[in-house]
């Protein structure tokens, strides 16, 4: 029998490790999917079908020279990637990825597969997102380079603009679920309607789901919203001046943010770990499958859609997405009052 607190520490480290692995898998699949989209092979030399390429990349990056612009603000330049990476890992702490389990009787009492079950989980997620903006702004500012600064400004204004629609869709979901805890929200989606349609909030909130996905892509600065690092105009955006491990931390943060966004979308709209056939304690398999599908969609979109122009991005965010999200919230609120939960 393992005591509860040791199991919780174990989950903490397991989540940390799994996030790193997930980021590596994401990098590899992104390169492979990109290659297939463009009728190339992609990485195929390191390991079977190039599967060990991410490890080779990491080793290469670690051994690169650390560069720092002469006129950079040294302290902030060093802190910025740390803020980005820390925020990325911290955000996943409140995301549940499986039902309560006692690991086949190993632990005294069942624990939920989640680092911290906070009853204001959705707000914590929002708070950490708003902190992660700083990593990018500070990186751009402290580099003292015009490309970095422009990238950082774009990124911040984009994140702030899309955070509003993101927040409003979150609010509609919590109106239906009647809770701010992600675990409660997932549990509210168990079972089926008419015996075969899963009770996912994606079906109750189709508009909310679409808005949430679009805003999620914009929040993670992915194509077609990757203005902050538009290579053709800005070299690499906010991390132009970074190399070696600090660069790696930004890279890591970006991929982990994608995984978190996909995990949150799964928890909020796709029923989390609930699915047919598998017993409850193997629900995390459904969770991984759902996340994988969303992440594949992200990659697919990146290599299919062209980048938006900056004014189009802002117009879309403020004049289309935000009114729709507000309307969705109003309709949801009216529905909840009329039909009950």
């Amino acid at each position, binding site marked *: 029998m393992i005591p509860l607190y040791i199991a919780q520490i174990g989950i903490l480290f397991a989540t940390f490790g799994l996030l790193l692995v997930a980021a590596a898998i994401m990098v590899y699949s992104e390169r492979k999917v990109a290659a297939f989209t463009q009728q190339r092979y992609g990485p195929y030399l390191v390991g079977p079908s190039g599967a060990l390429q991410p490890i080779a990349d990491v080793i290469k990056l670690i051994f690169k020279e650390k560069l720092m612009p002469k006129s950079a*603000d040294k*302290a*902030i330049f060093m802190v910025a990637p740390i803020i980005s990476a820390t925020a990325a890992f911290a955000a996943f702490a409140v995301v549940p990825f499986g039902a309560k389990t006692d690991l086949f009787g190993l632990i005294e009492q069942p624990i939920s597969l989640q680092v911290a079950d*906070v*009853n*204001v989980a959705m*707000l*914590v997620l*929002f*708070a950490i997102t*708003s*902190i992660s*903006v*700083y990593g990018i*702004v*500070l990186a751009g*500012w402290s580099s003292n380079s015009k490309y970095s*600064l422009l990238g950082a400004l774009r990124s*911040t204004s984009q994140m*702030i603009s899309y955070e509003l629609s993101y927040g409003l869709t979150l609010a509609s979901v919590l109106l239906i679920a009647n809770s*701010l805890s992600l675990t409660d929200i997932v549990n509210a989606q168990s079972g089926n309607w008419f015996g075969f349609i899963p009770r996912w909030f994606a079906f109750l909130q189709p508009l909310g789901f679409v808005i949430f996905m679009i805003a999620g892509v914009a929040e993670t600065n992915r194509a077609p919203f990757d203005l902050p690092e538009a290579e053709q105009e800005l070299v690499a955006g906010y991390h132009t001046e970074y190399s070696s491990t600090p660069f790696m931390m930004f890279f890591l943060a970006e991929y982990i943010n994608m995984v978190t966004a996909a995990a949150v979308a799964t928890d909020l709209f796709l029923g989390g770990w609930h699915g047919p056939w598998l017993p409850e304690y193997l629900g995390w398999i459904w969770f991984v499958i759902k996340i994988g599908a969303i992440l594949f969609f992200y990659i697919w979109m990146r290599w299919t859609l062209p980048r938006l122009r900056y004014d189009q991005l802002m117009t879309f965010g403020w004049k289309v997405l935000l009114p729709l999200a507000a309307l969705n919230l109003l309709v949801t609120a009216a529905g909840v009052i009329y039909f009950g939960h």
Partner: protein
Amino acid sequence: MGTDLLLFYLFGGAAVLASLAVVLGRNPMHSVLLLIVSFAALAGLYITLGSPFAAVIQIIIYAGAIMVLFLFVVMLLNAHREDALLTPGASGVKGPIRTGAVLGVVLAAELVWALVKAGQAPDGELAAGAAPNVEALGSVRALGLLLFTDYAFAFEVTSILIVVAMVGAVVLAKREL
């Protein structure tokens, strides 16, 4: 109790040190960042007081939204170092320093008064009215109910105040509408 006290000193100390550094530092950019640290430490204090909701809101509103605006202003105005004001003997310095000193003394007196009052009050009760219900502060539902029933008037007045401030800012920024 031991952990609580330790956390209190940790967060409280961080908040005080960061705030001091905000005021004493010469680099506006660093000041903004340290102010964020100070707000985060305050959020930590709220958590030790049993109100995660207030802590999260503190981070979202103050550390997140408002400080990003501060950061933008400092970044875009390109304010490097504030040396000019601090040269001794420069004209126009004495006035602000005097006002600041008076305000500082008043604040310190208020703080001492509050501490003395809190010390005299019976245990677990603050000088200002009845002790708030800890359960109510922790739960979002209870907080929302209170806000929209007992404090509905104050809530609405605050929102009018904010709208007025916003309109004022727009009028000031855009001379001709």
